[in-house]
């Protein structure tokens, strides 16, 4: 797939194992979230990244602790991958007061500033210019932080995509735009409504950027391309745009059975599932079955614990309702 030719991934094996752990955690967490939705405990909507975990894990592994993530409504994976604990994320989905935002944001707006997760944005395209702003701030303040901004293939046709890419390019901002191309918008195939085949990469030239397409179901490949782009950003060489090819295993949102997709397409991509694929690579590269099973079991225990803790969370009340519209903590618009 285009520019990434040799894939190596992290050089030390411990990092590879932790990148595996990350993917397994995202998978198990979201599988549980789906179960809880079926039990009617997840309120509102939610959008799972099942099948797309390698992108979140690959990037988060390559990023430094104080780099920034900007995610979409499909943001569970990106949030967890940066190290946010499972309990507050799950509690947020359940609308509990021990949720990451005390229930006020919900699944589509996961944010943990402490972990560099600068928000999940639910209106298509908005966070691309916002990520530019964070990158501008890093540039102005002379830190070497980088803003990494994830979005979908369908989001490449909205106006703010264009404005953000141009601004990032002319200001040489340390921002990385990552298009997670899972082929589908909600229920419409993106190529049916897009003027080029690769909606992000084929447009990079319009902003003077390199055309980069990467196998988004291979955490090592993602890690490599992420590392290169991060280095470029830190070196003051400006933004990158990366298109990572992937597929969501389930529907667009929690209630969508995804019947509109051809069976063969689904089968083809299930065969490319990033997690078993990475697992067997690790085995090839020297990991033991025991090591990997242990990781999986540890994650399973975490998910259990998070489930219990989230369910035990309180119901948010009037005090939270009227809190934090303003920086003074309140919501008053009058004296």
């Amino acid at each position, binding site marked *: 797939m285009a520019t990434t030719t040799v894939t190596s991934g992290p050089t030390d094996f411990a990092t590879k194992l932790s990148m595996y752990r990350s993917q397994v955690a995202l998978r198990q967490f979201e599988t549980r979230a789906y179960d809880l939705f079926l039990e009617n405990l997840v309120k509102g909507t939610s959008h799972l990244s099942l099948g797309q975990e390698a992108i979140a894990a690959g990037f988060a592994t390559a990023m430094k602790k104080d780099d920034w993530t900007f995610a979409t409504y499909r943001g569970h994976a990106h949030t967890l991958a940066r190290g946010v604990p499972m309990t507050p994320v799950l509690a947020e989905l359940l609308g509990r007061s021990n949720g990451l935002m005390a229930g006020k944001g*919900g699944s589509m707006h996961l944010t943990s500033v402490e972990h560099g997760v600068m928000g999940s944005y639910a209106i298509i395209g908005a966070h691309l210019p916002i990520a530019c702003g964070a990158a501008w701030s890093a540039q102005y303040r002379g830190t070497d932080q980088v803003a990494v901004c994830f979005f979908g293939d369908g989001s490449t046709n909205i106006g703010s995509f264009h404005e953000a890419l141009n601004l990032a390019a002319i200001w040489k901002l340390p921002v990385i735009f990552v298009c997670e191309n899972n082929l589908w918008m909600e229920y419409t195939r993106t190529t049916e409504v897009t003027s080029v085949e690769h909606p992000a990469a084929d447009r990079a030239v319009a902003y003077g950027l390199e055309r980069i397409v990467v196998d988004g179901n291979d955490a090592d490949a993602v890690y490599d391309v992420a590392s290169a782009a991060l280095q470029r950003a830190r070196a003051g060489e400006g933004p990158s745009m990366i298109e990572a090819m992937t597929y969501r295993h389930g529907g667009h949102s929690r209630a969508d059975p995804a019947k509109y997709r051809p069976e063969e397409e689904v089968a083809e991509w299930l065969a490319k599932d990033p997690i078993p694929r990475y697992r067997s690579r690790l085995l090839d590269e020297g990991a033991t079955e025991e090591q990997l099973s242990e990781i999986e079991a540890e994650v399973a225990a975490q998910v259990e614990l998070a489930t219990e803790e989230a369910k035990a969370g309180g119901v948010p009340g009037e005090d939270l309702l009227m809190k934090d519209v303003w920086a003074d903590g309140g919501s008053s618009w009058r004296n």
Partner: protein
Amino acid sequence: MAQLTFREAIARGIAQEMRRDESVVFLGEDVGAAGGVFKGTVGLLEEFGGVRVRDTPISEQAILGAAMGAAMTGLRPVAEIMFADFFAVCWDIVANEIAKSRYMTNGQVTFPLVIRSGNGGGLRFGAQHSQSVENWAMMVPGLKVVVPSNAQDVIGLMAASIRDDDPVIFLEAKVLYSTKMDVADGEIVDTLGSAKVLRQGKDATLVALGAMVPKALDAAEELAAAGIDCTVVDVRSLVPLDTTTILREVGATGRLFTVEENPRLCGWGGELASIVSEEIFYDLDGPIVRITTPHIPLPAADALEDLAIPSVERIVTTVTKSMNT
């Protein structure tokens, strides 16, 4: 007579007009094969084909720009903006272009188009997918604003909106999509700018819109049981506004309570309060009271959202308290 959900009524209303008039076309995101994310357009693609029912990219400015350009050159487009919150990404086309161009050109161009959208909260979708934006539209000269509260009205008001030669913002309370009622067979055409008196009382007048209408009715029942007899008016259309009916009904009881899903500041209820307190000031027997969502972004958690949006209980308590002081 058939039981119809609010969402089925949307599709029926549009289909009724598409059958009647070839110039009616429909566009939006995921509206064709998928039938819309709220299933408001199920069956349209099958009946009218892909030339009249078009799936678009995620490009709201392009969607409404296309609707505008088509309307000024002979078509009568109906465009879907999936969630009303997304008006913010295409507000220029709505507020600066569609709304103003007829006036600016001294009547040379006309915009017979409808923009329909899922509006309001109650589904725990959080602050960016739950707004009640009726006031965004009411505030802009040149837009008509229609907000039905039940399936029968949906069909008739949709037909009236499509037949109207002016741009209509048609807001569908998402929380009502699954509500059902018996709807008459055959063609249904209603009238814009006509409020409906749903209940006649003698003590106070509750004026409500969209998803707040059933709540106001329920509250009126409870209030009646407690000895406060309320009139309930369903506004149905903010522009044109049926001030005749509203002023008559408020004047008759001497008391106005608005029930608004929108956040408080600059809500339509404020506009009503100003009209009432100017034009029938001397008919008022007591303060005008607005029952609204507090002036905060809408929270996602079910418990919080239920606290935010006016509830039957809050309506009852507020009216009772105000009538007893």
